[in-house]
């Protein structure tokens, strides 16, 4: 190892026309060979721009990049040959099968014909796609597509692997599998650049480059970043639902507190100085290990950027809802069938006024379908969904009038200005005249949108889009707020600001239902329903779910761990059930839906057997062991039953995707649409 790192970036700057600040602002950083380097930052931080600059897909305004001694401008071809790049939307051909896609990429990368059988076998085993070789790529689930993408990139045996947000839209289970694969590659000597907006992933990297608005806020080992916040993170426990929200609002007004969020039943705070805690009568603080997110917020605070604190002006100006504890949202035996395939079966839950309720679940488990039924976007096959006592089937318009909705993707009118959007949505919810004008003015004032009100919504910075979307959802003073992954990809300050409003709104009596992949968001919930295979497999407060998932090996699981453990427990129960069914003469492992997709999967499975564990290189260093142990927890145990968790998990994903296809008999366009309505979640 010489003095120069594998990747050396010096003063790299890139601006795009029409943007106020550079996408990348004089970045200087080095990454050593064989390291797993996290490129961390919210959307728009400059992660993709950096990757494209490394491969000379963009021309820098200034600065240089050297990769393994090669200059990115002069030796671009050479660099591209030694690196594998998986962009956010990897170009898989959806109409080709898994193997055909791999063959295509092998041709593109000039992989010799003789080497292919071994290479293919190795990669199919590695990515655990062996059983799906003949499946069309378009029929794979989100997680499997990413694995196939990775397999295609690895065909040319790159020395540098660039992965642009590979974990977006992938549920925690598949995310861990993907992570384990890439870690094992880095251990084998490959240098990996993993871009992500999930800050928890940063902690597990060897090196981290934290980007925010094109600037390098931190680079180095993750533990270094945690240094300044060590001894400043505390948890205040033992507070009931709404009390902890009020307490957080109060704490965020205290001078000692730098940052605070809700984490299950606890309030987590970061103090300004180690050890100096605010006075909370009867409250006991216990110290916590800081997270990378705490560090991020701290760094931002050091740069003069702080989140909104104290009370939410929005909530303060909203009318109080009666504090009656009434059931506001109710699902009774909610069932949705698409042909012979059941996406949601017998889902029942109630949400009382002022509570925050979360729907969690892997991709295609039916949580999105449940959510859509509650919004009136999908009509249930059986059962009822009601809002404030109004059945969505009988009073769709009236019931929807009581709901505010915020989609995952920004989905306001790009072509309209901020103010036009506000006027349109308030009008759609029946506001008019002076009341409408007052609400629009109020929103512009609260969210600092007034100076921007003539700007087209598409040109707003991400944080402001988020504000505008929230404003459009609450102007009509809804009883219920439906939020679909509301803060994925935004920076922690924007997320804090958002949750400040939501928390305070809940205190005012607004009921909130949220669906999310994002464990930080799940922690804010009073109650969570974990949806798997269309069923509500576990519900309770985040702490209850974590307690249920605690094992000897993992006594205090995170929300992520709990999610994976509970899915696994449900698997085990299902397998036992199936075994019992088999005793009574039914086909084992036929699942509950038993669609044609399932049958074909069975034959696939018998070809290669079910032994899917990807190679995870175990190294005996202390830091690493912890990581590997975590990953091991996610991996199947071979003694689990007739099929392992991972095969089961995949099978499930597959069923959701395959069943509508079988129903439609290959009418591609229709299948696509139904899949969207049915289960294919983002």
């Amino acid at each position, binding site marked *: 190892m010489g003095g120069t790192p594998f990747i050396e970036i010096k003063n790299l700057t890139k601006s795009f026309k029409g943007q106020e600040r550079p996408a990348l602002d004089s970045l200087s950083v080095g990454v050593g060979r064989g390291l797993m380097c996290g490129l961390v930052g919210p959307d728009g931080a400059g992660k993709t721009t950096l990757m494209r600059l490394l491969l000379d897909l963009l021309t820098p305004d200034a600065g240089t990049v050297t990769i393994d001694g090669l200059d990115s401008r002069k030796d671009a071809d050479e660099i591209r040959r030694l690196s594998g790049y998986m962009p956010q939307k990897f170009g898989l051909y959806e109409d080709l099968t898994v193997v055909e896609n791999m063959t295509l990429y092998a041709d593109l990368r000039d992989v010799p014909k003789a080497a292919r059988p071994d290479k293919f076998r190795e990669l199919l085993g590695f990515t655990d796609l062996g059983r799906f070789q003949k499946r069309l790529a378009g029929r794979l689930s989100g997680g499997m597509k990413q694995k196939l993408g990775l397999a295609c990139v690895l065909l040319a045996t790159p020395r540098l692997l660039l992965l642009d947000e590979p974990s977006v839209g992938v549920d925690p289970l598949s995310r861990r599998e993907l992570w384990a694969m890439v870690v094992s590659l880095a251990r084998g000597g490959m240098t990996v650049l993993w871009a992500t907006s999930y800050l928890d992933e940063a902690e597990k990297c060897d090196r981290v480059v934290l980007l925010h608005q094109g600037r390098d806020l931190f680079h180095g080992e993750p533990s270094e970043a945690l240094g300044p916040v060590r001894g400043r993170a505390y948890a205040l426990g033992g507070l009931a639902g709404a009390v902890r929200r009020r307490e957080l609002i109060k704490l965020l007004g205290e001078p000692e507190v730098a940052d605070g969020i809700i984490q299950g039943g606890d309030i987590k705070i970061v103090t300004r100085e180690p050890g100096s805690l605010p006075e909370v009568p009867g409250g006991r603080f216990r110290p916590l290990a800081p997270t990378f997110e705490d560090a991020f917020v701290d760094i931002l605070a050091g740069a003069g950027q702080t989140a909104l604190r104290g009370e939410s002006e929005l909530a303060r100006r909203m009318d109080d809802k009666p504090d009656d504890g009434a059931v506001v949202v109710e699902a009774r035996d909610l069932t949705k069938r698409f042909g012979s395939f059941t996406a949601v079966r017998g889902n029942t839950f109630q949400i009382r006024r002022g509570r925050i309720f979360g729907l969690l679940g892997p991709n295609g488990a039916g949580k999105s379908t449940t959510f859509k039924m509650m919004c*009136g976007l999908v*009509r249930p096959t059986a059962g009822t969904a009601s809002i404030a006592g109004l059945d969505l089937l009988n009073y769709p318009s009236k019931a929807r009038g009581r709901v505010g909705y915020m*989609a995952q993707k920004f*989905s306001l009118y790009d072509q309209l200005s901020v103010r036009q959007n506000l006027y349109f949505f308030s*009008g759609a919810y*029946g506001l008019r005249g002076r009341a409408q004008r007052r609400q629009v003015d109020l929103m512009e004032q609260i969210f600092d949108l007034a100076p921007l009100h003539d700007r*087209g919504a598409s040109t707003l910075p991400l944080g402001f889009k988020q504000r505008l979307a929230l404003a459009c959802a609450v102007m009509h003073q809804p009883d219920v707020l439906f939020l679909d992954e509301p803060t994925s990809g935004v920076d922690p300050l924007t997320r804090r600001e958002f949750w400040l409003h939501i928390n305070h709104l809940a205190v005012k009596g607004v009921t909130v239902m949220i669906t999310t992949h994002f464990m930080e968001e799940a922690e804010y919930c009073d109650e969570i329903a974990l949806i798997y295979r269309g069923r509500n497999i576990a519900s309770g407060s985040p702490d209850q779910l974590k307690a249920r998932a605690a094992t000897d090996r993992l006594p205090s699981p995170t929300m992520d761990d709990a999610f994976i453990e509970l899915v696994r427990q449900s698997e085990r129960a299902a397998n036992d059930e199936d075994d019992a069914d088999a005793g009574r003469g039914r086909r084992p492992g036929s699942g509950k839906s038993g669609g044609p997709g399932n049958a074909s999967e069975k034959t696939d499975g018998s070809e290669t057997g079910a032994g899917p564990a990807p190679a995870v290189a175990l190294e005996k260093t202390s830091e690493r062991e912890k990581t590997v142990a975590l990953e091991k927890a996610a991996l199947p145990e071979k003694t689990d039953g007739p099929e392992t968790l991972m095969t089961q998990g995949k099978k499930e994903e597959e069923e959701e995707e395959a069943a509508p296809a079988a129903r439609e008999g290959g009418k591609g*366009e229709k299948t*696509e649409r139904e899949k969207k309505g049915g289960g294919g979640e983002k």
Partner: protein
Amino acid sequence: MTALLLRIRTLIVKEFLIILRDPSGRAMLVVPPIIQLVLFAYAVTLEVSNVGVVVLNQDSGRHGTEVAARIEASPYFLASVERGGFQNIRISLENQKILMGVVIPRDFSSRLEKGTAAPIQVVSDGRRSNSAQIVTAYLTEIVAQYSLELAGRLEAGRLSARGQSLPGQNSSSLVHGVPPPPPTPPVSFSARHWFNPNLVYVWTIIPSLMAIITLLMTLNLSAMSLAREKEMGTFEQLLVTPLTPAEIIVGKLVPAMVVAAFESLLIYSLGRFFYGVPMRGSFPLLLGSIVLFSFSIIGFGLFISSIVKTQQQAIVGSFMFMVPCVALSGFAAPVENMPAWLQQAVVLNPLKHALVIMKGVFLKDMPAGEVWLNGWPLLVIGIAALLFSGWMFRKNLG
């Protein structure tokens, strides 16, 4: 009720803001129709004034020369007189240099003098049968005129020129004979083309274009509008508001109808004041019918929009609708020439009805009653299409 109207008003205002917000959107409403109008009116002409005709005069007598000269002097096509062999005509026809060859045989004059039938042979290019028909009609008129004059001059002379067909020169040729002129006593016939006395081609095409360009513009607008909302995710955002599917449809329908009225007015004023096409009928009736027509088209557009997911699919969908719609409308090929079953099927084509009305009102002051007779199918088609899209809406909801 007022709440309903206000919600719909909100939708309509939004729609107009989106259509008119940026300069390129505004330009899209004005520039393409004008370009289309100019292209259609000048380029897609059905006139034959530039069509080549060769007269092969093998007759040395005065009658042959006279007839050849008259054909050459005709303003309706470009004719030239040649002597020599037939080979020339054959080659020119094959190369599409000319549309038609006219052969005046050697004994033409002598036969006329003798008072026997004197045939003229006409060989035309069957690949361009429409133009050939038109030119043949002109030729027939010229020859008939001449024989009438001749009959008048030689009172007793029972001259007649009789057309006769010869077999075609090649597989692609059709041969049109010149039909015999009316027998003596000579009856002078003079054609009068009502409603368009000088057969100015632009007169007949502008009213048709009013309907066709309105079709192109509004079909695209309505087919794209919902598809765009689906792509952007705003469609779901709309569906979770208290707005009902019916309100959303009306909110899309009304702005598109206003745009249709605007487009047709644009074409109307250009046709009226730039091309000088006279307007014979009632203007409110014309405008009313174009709005009715746009209603049916937007119904189709929204139907396309309701079954597609992306704007791309919407473009393909509207194209698939548009091409047969124009081809089977009677714009280029008369509906009367279609096979019987197709004639029945085109009842479903809104443009077919619209063309009858537009030409009727524009050029011959079609009365309201007759407009209604041709217009009610538009209403039925529009309502059916809208019901279908509303149904698809609901189906999409699960």
